């Protein structure tokens, strides 16, 4: 039973990492305003959201199955408060931190119409911290001598994100692909 829970925990963790990688890459692609064949712009947004929610669900299963697996030695406090864990506390703590950030980002995103675009956008920036923390947790907690495949997968995910972020920072990223004058944005939200 413990082995099954451990496998479920690791499996969901790995797929969640892939989901969040897809999420962040599509988020950057979406912000660029570029259309993707077969998806359009709206499709990029919708798949971005689906991947995020799928990853979140997988993380919930990941945490729950490991919580009930005696081998993982997870206490309830470890689910919310980082760096207090028994098994590889540093890497586990990063996982806890990632879950905390994920909870905030997902909650605010689901409530975006209520909180308004400024709060939504500001909280969303936290995803640039969330993803590397999740990656570090995956590599630190999930790998040992027998998991070179996980390292390779993590490297592929990291590569994709590095390329996307590099593009995000480059000048050609531009005004959602249009040749136009950038808008002057109010530094306060409109009511």
């Amino acid at each position, binding site marked *: 039973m413990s082995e099954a829970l451990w496998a479920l925990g690791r499996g969901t963790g790995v797929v969640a990492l892939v989901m969040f990688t897809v999420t962040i890459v599509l988020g950057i692609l979406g912000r660029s305003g570029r259309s993707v064949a077969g998806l359009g712009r709206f499709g990029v947004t919708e798949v971005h959201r689906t991947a995020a929610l799928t990853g979140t669900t997988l993380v919930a299963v990941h945490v729950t199955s490991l919580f009930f697996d005696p081998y993982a030695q997870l206490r309830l406090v470890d689910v919310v408060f980082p760096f207090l864990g028994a098994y590889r506390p540093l890497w586990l703590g990063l996982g806890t931190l990632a879950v905390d950030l994920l909870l905030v980002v997902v909650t605010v995103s689901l409530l975006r119409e209520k909180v308004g675009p400024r709060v939504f956008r500001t909280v969303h920036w936290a995803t640039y911290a969330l993803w590397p923390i999740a990656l570090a947790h995956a590599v630190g907690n999930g790998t040992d001598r027998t998991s070179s495949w996980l390292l390779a997968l993590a490297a592929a995910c990291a590569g994709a994100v590095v390329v996307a972020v590099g593009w995000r920072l480059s000048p050609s990223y531009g005004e*959602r692909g249009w040749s136009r004058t950038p808008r002057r944005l109010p530094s306060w939200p409109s009511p």
Partner: protein
Amino acid sequence: MSRGARRLHVDWTRCDGHGSCAELLPELLALDDWGFPVSRTGERDPEVPAVLERHARRAQKACPLLALRLIPAVTRAP
């Protein structure tokens, strides 16, 4: 005017010409030279026919800047 009819309202203080709306609601919206939505009906806030209501809602949810709202078609005059 039918009860419950809606209009699509663009909050121009938020719109950044992303363009998902025009993809999802091409019957009512086109994009101008700079990527910003233009109403095809000539109305400022185009009325959404019942058959397009579902698509209009999808367009509203798809806007990454929360710039779209579905408002009642009949508003009180001052």
